[in-house]
């Protein structure tokens, strides 16, 4: 019996240890790519790739030294980069991919398909677009405590998405939205400011072609419709006129026609329901609640009347902003919010939108927006 157990453990340990021999990879010999950037090459149909790798050295130098290479496709550019570094390049730790505007405007699906087909690339890779060529963004020299700019971009996006400022934009989300009839993908837009990478807004795509950018203010409403907030933040402008009677020391001046109100801890829920009335008609219901954090004018928040008025005016303002955003998407003909999928989930057969119909009809979609807001608390002062 004892012999048997011994034998068993001998075989087990051999098998376990042998797995290490299968395909060995010495960490120090690897060029682990954390972020890749792709641009259109200067001449011809070439793709210009920029790769950021980890460095494992005794003296940690904080100098950013990306590897550049160009090839006919993204995969080719990656493949040809092997001659430009002494390390073996691997993609298992890829965290973000940045596409330059020129390339993104022509469509990024062929490049994404390569990523998707590569089983070593995680589906959680962030897909982003940059305002300037991606090689400039990846050349940023300031990246805080991150080991390299690639990890910095990853942490930045993680933080921004975690803070509920923009919607998630992983490879999986992008491919899902690209392949679904009735919704267009969205990605964050990166830029560079004072030598550091920043997020400037959301890029709207038509199929896989980058069309236009919306800023972070507008991005709030995209999320408001698409997703639910658990702890969001919003700043909104309201006209001073209606609140004149509640303001204690009011001195009318032309610059102060509006005042700002900041809401925090926003919880929201949205409901989109299509209605068949001969036209493509959608009702968008949004319930919105939060705490007041900041007012640029002093208001008597103890009176119920003021709170009610604020709630009503805010709802109106949000409705306005949402319809502005929707008009913009209709002008660009990008259904980033996926109204097409809501339609197709409700109606069968002939009423269902095909891809062509949806593209043709989206600018004619009609929306009823109904927002209800509630102010729960007004901070720790009255």
């Amino acid at each position, binding site marked *: 019996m004892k012999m048997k157990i011994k034998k068993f453990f001998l075989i087990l340990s051999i098998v376990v240890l042998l797995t290490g021999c299968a395909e060995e990879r010495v960490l120090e010999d690897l060029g682990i790519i954390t972020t890749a950037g792709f641009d259109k090459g200067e001449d011809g149909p070439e793709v210009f790739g920029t790769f950021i790798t980890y460095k494992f050295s005794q003296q940690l130098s904080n100098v950013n030294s990306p590897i550049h290479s160009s090839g006919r496709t993204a995969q080719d550019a990656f493949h040809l980069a092997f001659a430009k570094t002494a390390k073996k390049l691997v993609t298992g730790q890829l965290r973000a991919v940045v596409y330059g505007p020129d390339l993104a405007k022509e469509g990024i699906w062929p490049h994404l398909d390569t990523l998707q087909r590569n089983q070593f690339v*995680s589906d959680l890779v962030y897909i982003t677009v940059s305002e300037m060529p991606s090689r400039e963004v990846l050349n940023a020299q300031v990246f805080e405590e991150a080991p390299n700019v690639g990890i910095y971009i990853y942490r930045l996006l993680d933080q921004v998405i975690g803070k509920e400022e923009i919607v998630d934009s992983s490879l999986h989300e992008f*491919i899902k939205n690209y392949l679904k009839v009735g919704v267009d993908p969205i990605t964050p837009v990166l830029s560079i400011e004072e030598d550091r990478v920043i997020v400037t807004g959301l890029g709207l795509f038509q199929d896989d072609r980058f069309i236009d950018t919306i800023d972070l203010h507008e991005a709030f409403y995209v999320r408001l419709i698409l997703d639910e907030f658990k702890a969001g933040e919003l700043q909104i402008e309201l006209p001073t006129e209606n609140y004149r009677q509640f303001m204690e020391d009011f001195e009318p001046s032309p610059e102060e026609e509006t005042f700002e109100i900041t809401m925090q801890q926003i919880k929201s829920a949205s409901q989109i329901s299509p209605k068949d009335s001969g036209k493509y008609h959608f009702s968008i219901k949004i319930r919105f609640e939060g705490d007041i954090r900041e007012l640029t004018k002093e208001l008597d928040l103890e009176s119920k009347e003021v709170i009610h008025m604020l709630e009503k005016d805010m709802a109106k303002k949000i409705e306005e902003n949402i319809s502005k955003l929707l008009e913009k998407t209709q002008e660009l003909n990008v259904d980033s919010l996926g109204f097409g999928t809501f339609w*197709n*989930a409700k109606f069968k057969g002939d009423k269902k939108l095909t891809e062509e119909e949806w593209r043709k009809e989206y600018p004619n979609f009609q929306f009823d927006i109904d927002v209800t807001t509630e102010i729960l608390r007004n901070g720790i002062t009255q």
Partner: protein
Amino acid sequence: MKNPVNIPTHLKFRASYLFFIIFNILIGVGIVAYPSRVFQYAKQDSWLVLILVAIIVHLILAIIIFILRTYQDTDLYGILQETFGNWFAKLICYLFIIYFFTVYLSALAKYTEFIVVFIFPQLSKFIIGFFITILIAYSIYGGIRVIVGVSFIFFFLTFFVFALLVVPASMIDINNYFPLFEVSRKEVFEGMLLSTYSFIGIEVLWYLYPYIRNKEKTMLYSQLGLFAATILLLINVIISIGFFAPKQLESLIWPVLGMYKIISFSIFERLDIFAVSYWIFIILPNLILYAWLITRSLKRIHQIKQKHSIWAIIILSAIGLYFIQSSIKLEALLDVADISSIFFVFLFPILLFPFAIIKRIRGTKK
């Protein structure tokens, strides 16, 4: 009775273990590809197709057990011998052995394909297959009690890996399930035909039946095992439909493994690699049971010792793995297993059913 099988009492096991055996043999490599395969026909109504197939399989399982009860204490070979005579029984059993081997080899080849694609692209399938077959040989040497024990233990290990699907389940898009009942009758039929491959394995009862100690409970526990497997398949199908875009799901070869790509923990970043390695716990009972079925039927026909015939299987499967290196050849093998399973698993019991009824009627007359 011409050919009763006398199993020593110490080799018999309780019927409740059938639950684990049936569950384990049903859940194998098939589940990894199933959601996208059925989706090609039935779209968002795939779950409906699965439920319809499951009902039919429950009935077929009942038929198998009915036949086994009619003949009492014997297995497939004994039944065929009694009904059709020696020569025909051998022929059918040989066909069954070829079928078992096809299923065994396709499952082994498919699992090694996972390993090659996800973890070790440079490793030969032959080597991976060799290590797995050593484990299989070990279990066959251990005999039926070891095989039942493996099924029992690995059942609990299976749950853990499926529990991780909570993460993709939290990301599903409800719109993907609607509109309901859009699928046409023809597509339902095609989807059902395809779904049968996910339910191969219930034929294990043909040879396992004599080993059960309390035979009156066979029906209950094997039906429960089938039901549990159906629920797990259903969960996988439902999550896959919600998680992927329709076109995306159609394009994926292994959607279930694809869903693990989205899971990431700070201490373990790539859960898909973990899931692929962990799948050995799901696939191993499956392979062991099929290897046992082959050796057992050979023993019944020719009294070849199972310890000897297992080596023939190992050598044959090694040769098979050597020839199935490309995924196209693997698909061809899977198609063969697919089509033959419709006959061996589902049509065969129905064909045998009238004979069992005749035997029962004669028995009551006497």
